[in-house]
């Protein structure tokens, strides 16, 4: 200190001058800060355009549970039996959800309140996903740095910050498990790769905790617990087994498994379910490998060792197979679930589990949506793979495997594009970074070569070799510049595309619908909330509402009323019962509704506004799911020559089933469009077939201002006297 004080001013100034390394650090940190902010603010379109609100369906359940958690504390939350859903069965919430998201939000909320920021829990929930997206960019940077270099890390951070594939699930208000899970996923992978690279117990311990967080947050953890063993297996096969790998995998697996068992929803699945057996098998394989290594070390005779190897491997494989077979037979190890099958075989769900196939985000991905979500990354991905293969290391093998497997899954299901996004971004970042680096190196070194050549005359051998190279390729410099410009053009196109997609496609809350009015002004359809709020205020607090399962979470969260089925589709029979009620005639349906104590029936109808994802368009799924359990319901009854229609030519059963009646009740008197007959359905563009609908056991209780939600009250049975 004294020395500093005695220094002259000029020296002091000089000491403040940054060195090149410090400058680089400064630039890197400021880029990261900007990316961090960018990732956050690009996800705020929906808040600015609409309001700070929770989006879609599942996030409403998460919000409701978070609210419960913050109000009643963790233990009440853990032991919560929710009798407001799945009436009359109820749901053990604590044991049937991944609590990571709620606990995270509640923790952030607590911290903010401790720091005296009096925010509402809703704001915390709305901004959780963007916050974690920002954190993901940091992880992407470190991951990129680990597998390639700092440049690739920075590019990866930037790419992932705006990549639509990720934004689709992490805009403000999209308070869903995926929001934090992608962060957890990438973080676990990063820590594991770090652990493999260093062989350090600390990193593998950290990755075990990362895995624990992932398990607590999302069911997608199965991807980790299968990808990592697969990776280890590949390393073993390619002869890259090392002590580092041994330490990293064993520590991560054992600790991660023990930690994961603490999540009640997962429980003992790590040792009991078929989906987790690969990890265990690889774990034992690692031990065999280690053992063999040790024996090899002890035995000097190679022949003896070969024999020993053969015996051991045969024994191990037999024991393993027998154990697996016994486990399967005794039922101790459960077979793969339908969801898992449908991932491996895209056609499985369609034939066997209509409830999975009915969800739009479970459909196989179209090429256009790949293009939509990845844009130029789709072309950079193979290039990145090329670079990875060119410089093969443990880390690049990992990212290659991650990229390839997740790309396969992304092709199977639309929603899994999300899982592929980090890998695609990282691999593309390697491509961008490596290309740009090569090009700039070319430009700079040549300049230097010319300079040295001109000033010193002779020049070093390196410069002369570059000069030689120059002569062999005359337009190299221009080519490099052109390529650089091309790369920047592509990247800027990517940025504009991402912003456009985010603002146009992924920032709609889907609770509030917006449309362009006749004069170009924005028209808001706030019918969902109108109906839910009506339910909340004007029905008895113990009223039971029957609706298709899509709206279950929203009714309980916003309407605060008991529902029969909701988006947690755990009981197929119950859903099928509702489907059956909806597709039966009214007098049959009333029996089912009475048996379920239904007080109100809610249907969503888009015929007035032209809103196409309404219950009439979902109706065939109700028939299918209902028919899957109750063979009385037959799909062909509702179709005419295999065609689904609602106009005069529709099947008679269709025209008189409960759903049709509830949707079109008194719609025949309504003029929806100028120049069209009354009862013209704008969503389907036809005049409805049954205009004279009489309801016997139900009465209209409420219809929203644009008719999107219609609520009917089940009348009490008639007095016999």
């Amino acid at each position, binding site marked *: 200190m004294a020395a500093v004080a005695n220094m002259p001013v000029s020296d002091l100034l000089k000491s403040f001058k940054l060195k090149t390394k410090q400058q680089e650090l400064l630039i890197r940190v400021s880029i990261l800060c900007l990316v961090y902010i960018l990732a956050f603010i690009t996800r705020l379109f929906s808040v600015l355009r609409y309001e700070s*609100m929770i989006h879609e369906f599942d996030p409403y359940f998460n919000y409701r549970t978070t609210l419960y958690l913050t109000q009643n504390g963790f233990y009440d939350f853990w032991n919560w039996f929710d009798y407001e859903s799945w009436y009359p069965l109820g749901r053990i919430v604590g044991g049937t959800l991944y609590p990571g998201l709620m606990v995270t939000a509640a923790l952030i909320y607590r911290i903010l309140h401790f720091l005296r920021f*009096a925010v509402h829990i809703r704001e915390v929930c709305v901004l959780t996903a963007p916050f974690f997206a920002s954190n993901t960019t940091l992880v992407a940077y470190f991951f990129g740095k680990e597998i390639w270099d700092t440049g690739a890390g920075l590019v990866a951070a930037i790419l992932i910050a705006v990549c639509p594939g990720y934004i689709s699930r992490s805009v403000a208000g999209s308070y869903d498990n995926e929001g934090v899970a992608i962060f957890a996923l990438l973080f676990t992978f990063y820590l594991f790769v770090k652990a493999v690279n260093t062989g350090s117990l600390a990193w593998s311990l950290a990755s075990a905790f990362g895995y624990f967080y992932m398990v607590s947050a999302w069911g997608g953890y199965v991807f980790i617990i299968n990808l990592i063993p697969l990776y280890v297996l590949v390393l073993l096969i390619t002869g890259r087994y*090392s002590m580092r790998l041994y330490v990293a995998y064993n520590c991560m697996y054992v600790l991660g498994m023990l930690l994961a068992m603490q999540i009640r929803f997962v429980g003992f699945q790590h040792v009991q379910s078929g989906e987790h057996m690969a990890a265990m098998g690889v774990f034992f394989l690692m031990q065999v490998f280690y053992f063999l290594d040790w024996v090899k070390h002890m035995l000097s005779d190679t022949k003896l060792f070969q024999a020993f190897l053969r015996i051991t491997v045969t024994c191990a494989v037999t024991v393993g197979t027998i154990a697996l077979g016994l486990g399967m037979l005794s039922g101790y190890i459960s077979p793969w679930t339908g969801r898992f099958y449908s991932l491996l075989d895209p056609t499985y769900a369609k034939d066997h589990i209509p409830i999975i196939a009915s969800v739009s985000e479970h459909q196989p991905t179209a090429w256009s949506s790949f293009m939509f979500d990845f844009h130029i990354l789709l072309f950079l991905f193979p290039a990145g793979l090329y670079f990875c293969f060119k410089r093969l290391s443990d880390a690049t093998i990992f990212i290659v495997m991650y990229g390839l497997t997740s790309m396969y899954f992304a092709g199977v299901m639309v929603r899994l594009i999300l899982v592929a996004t980090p890998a695609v971004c990282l691999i593309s970042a390697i491509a961008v970074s490596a290309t740009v680096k090569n090009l700039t190196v070319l430009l700079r070194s040549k300049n230097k070569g010319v300079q040295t050549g001109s000033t010193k005359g002779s020049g070093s051998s390196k410069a002369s070799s570059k000069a030689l190279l120059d002569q062999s390729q005359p337009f190299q410099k221009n080519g490099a510049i052109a390529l650089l410009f091309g790369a920047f053009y592509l990247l800027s196109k990517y940025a504009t595309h991402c912003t456009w997609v985010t603002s146009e496609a992924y920032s709609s809350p889907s*609770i509030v619908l917006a449309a362009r009015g006749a004069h170009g002004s924005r028209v*808001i359809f706030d019918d969902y909330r109108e109906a839910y*709020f009506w339910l909340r205020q004007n029905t008895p607090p113990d009223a039971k509402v029957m609706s298709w399962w899509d709206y279950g979470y929203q009714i309980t969260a916003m309407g605060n009323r008991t529902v029969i089925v909701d988006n947690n589709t755990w009981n197929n029979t119950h859903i099928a019962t509702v489907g059956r009620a909806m597709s039966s005639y009214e007098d049959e349906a009333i029996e089912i509704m009475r048996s379920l104590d239904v007080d109100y029936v809610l249907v969503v109808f888009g015929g007035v506004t032209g809103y196409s994802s309404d219950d009439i368009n979902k109706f065939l799924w109700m028939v299918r799911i209902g028919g899957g359990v109750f063979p009385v319901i037959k799909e062909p009854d509702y179709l005419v020559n295999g065609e689904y229609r609602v106009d005069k030519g529709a099947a008679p059963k269709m025209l008189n089933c409960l759903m049709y009646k509830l949707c079109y009740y008194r719609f025949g008197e*309504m003029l929806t469009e100028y120049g069209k007959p009354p009862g013209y359905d704008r969503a389907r563009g036809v005049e409805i077939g049954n205009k004279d609908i009489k309801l016997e056991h139900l009465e209209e209780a409420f*219809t*929203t201002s644009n008719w999107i939600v219609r609520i009917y009250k089940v009348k009490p049975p008639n007095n016999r006297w």
Partner: protein
Amino acid sequence: MEVPIRATGILGFTFFSLLFFICTSSPLHNLFISNAERRIDATSHIVKVYLTLKVENAGSTPTSEVLLAFPPTRVDHLATVEALVTKGKRKKTTLVRLDVKPTELPDAPNGAKYFTIYLANPLNSGESTTLEVLYLFTHSLEPFPAEIGQSESQLVHYRDSALILSPYHIKQQTTFIKTPSSKVESFTRVEPTNRAGTEIKYGPYEDRPPYSFSPILIHFENNSPFPVVEELVREVEISHWGNLQVTEQYTLVHGGARHKGVFSRVDFQSRPTLSGASSLRHLLARLPPRVHSVYYRDEIGNISSSHLRTDSRKSELEIEPRYPLFGGWKATFVIGYGLPLQDFLFESSDDRRYLNFTFGCPLLETVVDKLTVKVVLPEGSKDPSAVVPFPVDQHLETKYSYLDVVGRTVVVVEKKNLVPVQNSHFQVYYTFKPIFMLAEPLMLASAFFLFFVACVAYLHIDLSIPMLSVRGVNIRYGCAKIKPISKCVSDMKETKLSDPADPPAMNDSSNRSLGG
């Protein structure tokens, strides 16, 4: 229905007359009312009564108190009583407001309740004065039938007395009752009674003794909605940085005839006049001028149907509930807005500050059953006291908001049964040192400063355990990163092995420890 009501009326009349004969005391009888005219406006759900009394002092001593009497059942619904006296001659008349206070009289017949009007100048014997009295009743129109369908119109019962209940002798009196439409189902006749258009006239009645009472019942159509705010919590937060933030939480209910049966949107949309005529479609809130950042939302989010019109004198906020309110339907919502502080906060002469703000509910034509006003004073303010022009319940609370350490003092004022006429102002006095304004910015600044200091410190302090040999390896490892990792590790091993200084040293130490 008519017959039993009339019967009870006669019973009541005789009862009150009996009471009058029993109680023959007090200086009340010095006064008598020479002429009384009462106009009852029943067009909305707040019943307004304009009473013009000509009071004469027949006694020998001057008196300055005039009593008003109310039946005990109606006093609960009495929202406000105001009395005015005309001053001046002919054209230069001005109205002067008089003090009115509830009074208990020991010998009140049949539990009648009293209000005392305190005259500005005592009324000498033989003199007379004219009083203008206004009082409002809430919840006094009783829907009958109590449940109606969507297309029916709302009919209500109004009960009152044809004669003015008064502790004084009234020489001549007339009562006019105004109904919203000419559709009157029935009304009690107390001759002379006649009806013309939307007005029913009772009287004139001559020379009625004190406590005369003659119940009447009018059954008429009133299709105006009955907006009743069951509970309103107004929170006024003062920030000395120049903003006054008002948050109002409403629990609104339609207090009219309950809705029965179906709600049909087709009918409601295609025949708005016939269907749901008494439904509550929108409300108007009158806010102070220069209002900014207005919001209107509820538990589940923003409600997009509202319009704000502002001019220099007032702001009007027209709000629509999410759905039209039929009888018995409820809605809860929150209105919030900011106001410039200088319009409402002043400094009093004794160096204290005071907030001057309206007390009641800004919604027009609304009854508030329970009002809670919370004034959140800035952190560090002392000695709060509220001055409200009518009797209220008061207490203090503490609230924690952004960056509060000790919490803010909240002055809570509660009042029941309130009507918009009572939107008078109230004041909250407190002392506040401006230095407290800087507490929060300073806190933030120091927090950021500490954060940066911590960052700088972290970058400059090497927290790793200093082991020179290991550090050498580390540097090597750092340089060798571009090589495949496996090679790098083997490098590490080599360096460790080849380092001649290290292993012997370790051996030494272990030997020593063994030896020790």
